[in-house]
């Protein structure tokens, strides 16, 4: 039976062991993940990098519990995702994972505050309480004065900050980001990455980012390099290089 409350006594947030994933059948069968093993630790930003088609997004989807795997095991804060099915997996995602998508996926017909409150509504929090909490988180990401606006009125960087607020509003221990800077210019990219750094520093939280944007590699605590469905190496980044990019988040 899966646990809804995450536990991590050894600092390991995500533990991927021998995961395989294929698409298609017969001659068209594509082996996308090949015996992948990886760990993400609490309090760190782990970046999955590599060329297009190497399996980064598939691995991220498997860790997020939005895609099953053919074999192998995935534990998220000690909860065996590979054994969860249907409603249990859906509830686990709602409770424990914050999502940040490449195209933000903010709902254009509702306000920023309403967008941010969505994860709380999914968890059954009342609309008024969710909106109140959403405004607090919007303040924290420097978007408090835009809570009434619809996403279409905001720049790409501002929309990404709204998406970050949405990913954090229910205080998930794991935040999953897919190409968070792909739609942003360099300046907005740095602002967003600074936010991620603050997010990752929160107690017990892990941030996993899929990217092929080499401008942001230096923000990672560790980088896992993938190629052709395999993890080819995992290495720690140079802290001196990280310090070079750090600056205040504008409000």
């Amino acid at each position, binding site marked *: 039976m899966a646990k809804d409350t995450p536990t991590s006594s050894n600092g390991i947030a995500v533990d991927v062991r021998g995961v395989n994933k294929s698409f298609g059948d017969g001659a068209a069968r594509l082996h996308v993940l090949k015996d992948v093993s990886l760990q993400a630790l609490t309090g760190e930003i782990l970046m999955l990098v590599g060329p297009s088609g190497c399996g980064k*997004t*598939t691995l*991220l*989807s498997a860790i*997020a519990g*939005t*895609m099953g795997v053919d074999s192998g095991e995935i534990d998220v804060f000690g909860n065996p995702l590979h054994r969860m099915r249907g*409603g249990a997996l*859906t*509830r*686990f*995602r*709602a*409770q424990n*994972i914050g*999502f940040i*998508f*490449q*195209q933000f*996926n903010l*709902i*254009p*017909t*509702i306000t920023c505050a*309403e967008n941010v409150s*969505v*994860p709380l*509504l*999914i*968890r059954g929090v009342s*609309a008024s309480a969710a909106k109140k909490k959403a405004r607090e988180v919007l303040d924290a990401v420097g978007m408090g004065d835009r809570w009434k606006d619809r996403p279409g009125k905001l720049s790409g960087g501002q929309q990404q900050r709204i998406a970050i607020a949405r990913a954090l509003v229910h205080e998930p221990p794991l935040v999953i980001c*897919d*190409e968070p800077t*792909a739609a942003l210019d360099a300046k907005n990219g740095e602002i967003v990455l600074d936010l991620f750094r603050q997010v990752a520093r929160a107690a017990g939280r892990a941030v996993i980012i*899929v990217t092929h944007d080499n401008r942001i590699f230096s923000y990672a605590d560790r980088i896992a390099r993938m190629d052709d469905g395999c993890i080819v190496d995992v290495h720690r980044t140079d802290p001196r290089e990280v310090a070079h990019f750090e600056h205040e988040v504008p409000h």
Partner: protein
Amino acid sequence: MIGLALKMLFGDTAKYLMLVAGLFLATFLIVQQTGVFCGLMRWTTSTLKNVGAPIWVVEERVEQVNETNPLRDTDVARVRSVSEVAWAMPVFSGIQRVRMDNGSFKTIQLVGIDSASLAGAPTRMLEGTLTDLCLPNAVIVDELAVERLSKGRPRPLALGDTFEINDIEARVVGICEAKRSFTGGPYVWTTYERALQYTPPSRKMLSAVIAGPVDGVSVDEAATAIEKATGLKAFVNRDFGENEKDFNSSTIWWYVRNTGIPVSFGTTVVIGLIVGIAIACQTFYAFVLDNLMHLGALKAMGTSSFRLSMMLIVQAFTVGFIGFGLGLAASAMFAAGAIERGQPPVYLPWIIPVATFGVILAICSLAALLGIFRLSRFEPAMVFRA
């Protein structure tokens, strides 16, 4: 999440209005056309309402009240001789021509009733008295006759005014309330004997015999006894749908089977249904496709498939309720206007809006199911693909 679903729906103004418009149009077409059809069918039985009698005895091949296969005058006595019959009176019913003051002609529905009993007389007089029908050349006309036969006169037709029926003078001694006839001609009552004078002669002139049962005998039993004793056909005059002996049902079904009226109205109703299905399903499906990435993101973030399905159902049914409400309101306004003017005929029994509501809910369910089916095929992992 329901509030979120509604905001997503109302936020996409173009598609929301398109959905409401489609369901409004479907509701209006179905209710209005069905209402006019029912009204028209009721008009076919107006003579039965205007000439009130519990039993109508007609020639054995007659299927509906507007069809006249004349009887012999002696048939009145044959019906009276049946022991279950308390009374039986002759009735003449036929379309005749009235010459207007300006020389033009109008058709009327002439009804001749027994002068002694006045059985089959109008039930509600607006001006004049029924007994004046016994005066020379006297006729009682309905309100429509006042409207139709006043053309070319300096003032509307009133008591004491005269006009000609087949070149024979008729004097108005009363104005009554009556249901409109299917042929559009106003009802004019006179005595049976005078009706025969107004009508070009033929060998047999009696249109029907109206009768009533003796105390303690039902109309059905009396009608059966009349048929057995005389060989004529005896219908009972009751509301539509009671049984095969009911003259209202027999008349309406005759028009349904033998005219193109149901096909014509039915075609429009089917078009309304198709328009509703096409617009609602296509637009709602497009709405779901437009929001697929957002709905997929909700799925990835932990919204259950059941909850997402409920969101789509709420969205589809919301536009259904609004479209149906507006369509029904428009139909009611049309009906109110038609009743005020007297035409076209409209009759809206409760079953029409209820059945239409069911049809609209079915359309909305189909639209929601299409969306749910599309969403069910969307894996949450797909939101990670740009």
